[in-house]
């Protein structure tokens, strides 16, 4: 029994570490959904694209780490803005499913580009920010890189909370709730939409560049590659009712832990790929029991 408790503790630690990445992705998804009513399938691809850009700058062109990091973030943000300009805006009057297919197309295009441009490089590893320390609470391996990820999530969450109390943040909320009224009082809905997509892409980029060093990566790394965060990110966003920012953070951490529960040895010894199975039934249960999300307060019926 003692072994199980220890395994559980290790799994939970790993869950929180993975979950912090899911939370970053989920935050971006929730932001975009509130702004454009789109399920953004390209959210994780913003991250992978940023990661590829940072990798290219660092390893191939020999730039310094901070500059390469900034370059990766810049590419991710540019991709977000371009998506808004070229796909979301022209399709703004289409049905939601058409928009969803559109963002899936953006993701696929990005994946195709990554395959194409980095075809010659077989194994890609992003260097860690800090190789040095490595702690093992309860026997769970925790690298500095993973700790940085959790720290960044915490900082981002606080910054976002502050941002939504600033005039720009309030303008975003106003434009989401009443676009016409917001236009009338002088808020440019167009610019707000660009701003939201830019922030979401930056969140994706952070998730990508921070996660890259943990594993070797390939094209579609963050969507459905080695560190598939798209689906868990969506689950976290659904737990947050596609609306609540703190809910997205909590949801991401929860999904990370639930997924790790699935790979506990008592389960995974008998059935393969239990992580995916546990996530599937978890999503089903959540959607069927609480279709409006778990981490949301009661909504005023307007």
């Amino acid at each position, binding site marked *: 029994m003692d072994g199980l408790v220890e395994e559980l503790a290790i799994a939970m630690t790993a869950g929180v570490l993975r979950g912090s990445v899911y939370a970053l992705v989920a935050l971006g998804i929730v932001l975009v959904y509130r702004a454009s009513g789109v399920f953004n399938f390209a959210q994780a691809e913003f991250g992978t694209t940023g990661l590829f850009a940072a990798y290219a700058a660092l390893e191939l062109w020999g730039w310094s780490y901070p500059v390469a990091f900034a370059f990766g973030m810049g590419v991710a943000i540019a991709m977000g803005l371009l998506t808004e300009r070229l796909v979301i805006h022209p399709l703004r009057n289409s049905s939601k499913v058409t928009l969803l297919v559109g963002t899936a197309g*953006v993701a696929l295009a990005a994946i195709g580009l990554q395959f194409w441009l980095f075809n010659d490089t077989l194994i890609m590893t992003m260097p860690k920010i800090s190789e040095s320390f490595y702690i093992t609470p309860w026997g769970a391996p925790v690298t500095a890189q993973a700790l940085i990820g959790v720290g960044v999530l915490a900082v981002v969450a606080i910054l976002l909370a502050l941002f939504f109390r600033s005039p720009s943040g309030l303008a975003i909320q106003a434009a989401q709730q009443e676009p016409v009224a917001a236009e009338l009082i002088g808020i440019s809905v167009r610019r707000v939409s660009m701003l939201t997509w830019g922030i979401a892409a930056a969140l994706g980029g952070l998730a990508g560049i921070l996660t890259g060093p943990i594993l070797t990566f390939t094209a579609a790394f963050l969507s459905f590659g080695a560190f598939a965060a798209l689906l868990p990110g969506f689950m976290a966003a659904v737990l947050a009712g596609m609306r609540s920012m703190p809910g997205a953070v909590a949801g991401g951490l929860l999904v990370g832990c639930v997924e790790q529960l699935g790979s506990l040895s008592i389960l995974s010894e008998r059935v393969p790929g239990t992580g995916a199975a546990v996530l599937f039934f978890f999503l089903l249960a959540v*959607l069927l029991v609480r279709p409006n999300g778990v981490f949301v307060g009661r909504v005023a019926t307007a």
Partner: protein
Amino acid sequence: MTSTLDDSRTRILEPVAPPVQAPEPADGLASESSGSDQAWRPSRAGVWARGFVWGLLAWFVLAVPANILSPFELGVADVSAATEAVIFGIVGLSLNILLGYAGQISFGHQAFVGIGAFTSAYVVVDLQLSFWFALLIASAVGALQAGLLGAVSLRLSGLYFALVTLSYGAFTEQTVFGITELTGGEGGKSAPRPTGFDSEISYYLLCLGFLALVVFIDWRLTRSKAGRALAALRENPRVASSYGINVKAYILLAFALSGMIAGLAGALLAHHEEVIVGSKFGFQLALLFVLMTVVGGLRSRSGVVIGAAFFALLGSGKLLEMLDKPLSAVGFSLTEFIEGTVGLPQEFVPLVIGPILLLLTITLYPGGIGQQIAPVREWLLGRRFDPHAGKVEEVTVNDVRA
């Protein structure tokens, strides 16, 4: 006096009367020329021209792969690629039922196909039953699992359901297809060709026959009460149900039918490839299915089949080879151009071109390939060549149950 005047008037009017009636035949002519399809018949030359094009199409589909009356020398690999294109056509039609008719988005269609494939392989190899029986079982299992997933969709709105299908696909690929006893694990599972269909060309013709069957089923579906009910509930389920349409039953029907056809396609795919591996049915395949169906044109049978075949041939590299054959006469090779000059390796061509086509389709041509070929299609069906045929306002896969 007045009476004579009246008389004279009537007398004057009488001869005028025929001209009043005279426009009648002219009117008839006008309505005929304005496109009443029943009245208009193609001329004798038109009939011959249409017959010629139909013959050309039949020759292209039936004779060229068999190397009969054909200037090309097609090898086994070419026919194999053509078979895959036909199977993809069946998958496209299956997805079209969900996406186009019922308005339910599915990112888990690769799971439907994969389940059909492994079921059929299991029935043939482990249970030692015949191929035809395996097709039946695969279709039934496909219908069953799709129906179960459809039952979930009844409780969820469109976008949330898309997530469930996405998760279902991941679950099926990683968990179900990972069970070594059923699927042979990473080494894959063998699925031998049925007796009598060992050669590539005979199996190709078999798949073509099944495609024709599925097209027929699909055509009868759209012309039946069920097809009209699906169209109504896609546009607005509440209005549809107020007209007495059992929305839930018809959505389940659409799922079961789509799953059945996908299961059939999966079984055909399994025995086409002869060894199937679970990792083939990943999320990328699901995206490719959605891509080819939307680019093909939702609710357009011919468009979907052409779109599916296009992406299948693009993926196996045969499309570029095909285009190269006539182009080599002018000393130009598309394959070399793309691989050498553009620097795009052949295996990534669909991944790069596909999304661009998809984005172009949904922004500029919502009707996809089906919209592009609509004038030709109308002409082939014995109607006038109308360049404006098939115009669609938007891909109206509405978020129907939001």
